[in-house]
């Protein structure tokens, strides 16, 4: 008896990828409903086993209830959608104007705003709009690793041997924590990293990194970079506003296609081996959660 009810509730919980407090609350309600139904059926003369079997059947498919509950809670408000897309718009604005890149006050405002939003979101129970902001925090972790690899021969590897395992540990830990809530949130969080590192790799790595040629390349491709971030912002809004999960997955797959097209157009295939490595790492990190979710969905 107990096993059929717990099996039902576990199936329901496994299918429902939303905030755990909401999920547990609904599961508790279903459990209370089953208790009432079983009690009534037992009073009508049924055995506990028969009663629990009928009670579970009368509730209906746990997958269907989970899907309907998900659609109720999965659609964020317009406010949440705009909050989620805001960091991408800010970065697009940064690249849209030469002035903003070189203005320390503007850069400081963006940085303080980003830090403030992340701290606020963290203490507000990690709402969905927090994840795109968090994605920008992972970028310095990876960028430091890339810069360390660019140090003069010998030093680079020593730094990398200590830093990279530590950075990977932090990176994987944060991604896993996010994926525990929802695989798709992990991809949403990693999306800015994909855009930034795709552009990094196309403009050159190693000794060319941050050189005058590299900065010039950044300026030349500013329009494509802005388009990439605007696409990402649009996809984020779609992700938050769409209800069905399959459409959310689709909305996450659009930015990589636009970005890969933009990078290919801008670089004309001149990507070095480190560049390819960074590009593949970003693509892998971004696509894995979506792929895991697509598998679970099947």
């Amino acid at each position, binding site marked *: 008896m107990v096993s059929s009810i717990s099996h039902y509730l576990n199936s329901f919980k496994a299918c429902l990828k939303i905030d755990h407090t909401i999920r547990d*609350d*609904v599961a*508790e*309600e*279903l459990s*209370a*409903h089953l*208790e*009432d*139904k079983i009690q009534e059926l037992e009073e009508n003369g049924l055995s506990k086993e028969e009663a629990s079997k009928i009670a579970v059947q*009368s*509730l*209906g*498919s*746990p997958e*269907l*209830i989970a899907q*309907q*509950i998900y*659609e*109720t*809670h999965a659609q964020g408000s317009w406010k949440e959608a705009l909050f989620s897309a805001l960091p991408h718009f800010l970065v697009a604005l940064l690249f849209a104007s030469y002035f903003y890149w070189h203005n320390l006050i503007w850069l400081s405002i963006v940085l303080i705003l980003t830090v403030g939003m992340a701290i606020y979101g963290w203490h507000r129970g990690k709402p969905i709009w927090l994840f795109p902001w968090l994605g920008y925090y992972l970028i310095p972790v990876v960028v430091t690793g890339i810069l360390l690899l660019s140090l003069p021969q010998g030093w680079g590897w020593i730094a990398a041997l200590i830093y990279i395992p530590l950075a990977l540990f932090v990176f994987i830990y944060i991604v896993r924590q996010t994926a525990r809530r929802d695989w798709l949130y992990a991809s949403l969080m990693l999306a800015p990293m994909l855009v930034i590192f795709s552009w990094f790799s196309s403009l050159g790595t190693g000794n060319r990194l941050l050189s005058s040629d590299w900065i010039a390349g950044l300026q030349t491709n500013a329009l494509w970079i802005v388009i990439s971030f605007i696409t990402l912002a649009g996809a984020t809004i779609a992700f938050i506003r769409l209800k069905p999960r399959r459409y959310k997955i689709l909305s996450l797959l659009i930015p990589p296609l636009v970005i890969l097209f933009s990078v290919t157009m801008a670089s004309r295939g001149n990507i070095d081996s480190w560049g390819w490595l960074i590009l593949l790492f970003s693509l892998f990190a971004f696509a894995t959660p979506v792929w895991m979710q697509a598998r679970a969905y099947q």
Partner: protein
Amino acid sequence: MNYGRELLKGNTDSLLLCLISREPTYGYQIVKELETRSDGYFQFKEGTLYPALHRLERDNLITGKWQILPNGQQRRYYYITEKGQQVLANRLATWQDFASAVTSVIQTETT
């Protein structure tokens, strides 16, 4: 598509608001009330009630609160909000106008 089922689907929110407006109630009690008041006409998978309740709560038409019953069991009671009462009043007025218009047309046809 079953016409009766479609009608029920289109009016689930109004039926739930109506029941909750009478007295604060919880999921299982709502199912029983619907069954009793409709003389068993409304038959549906009981689990589908909860997405509907959560949709109403999301739209601030009702609010849910956990309460402990005298026997120690916990139930989530739903209360109608002020917004819910306004929406219900509008829907009931619309429904009554619609039902009387349909009845008038049907009666004209049959006489």
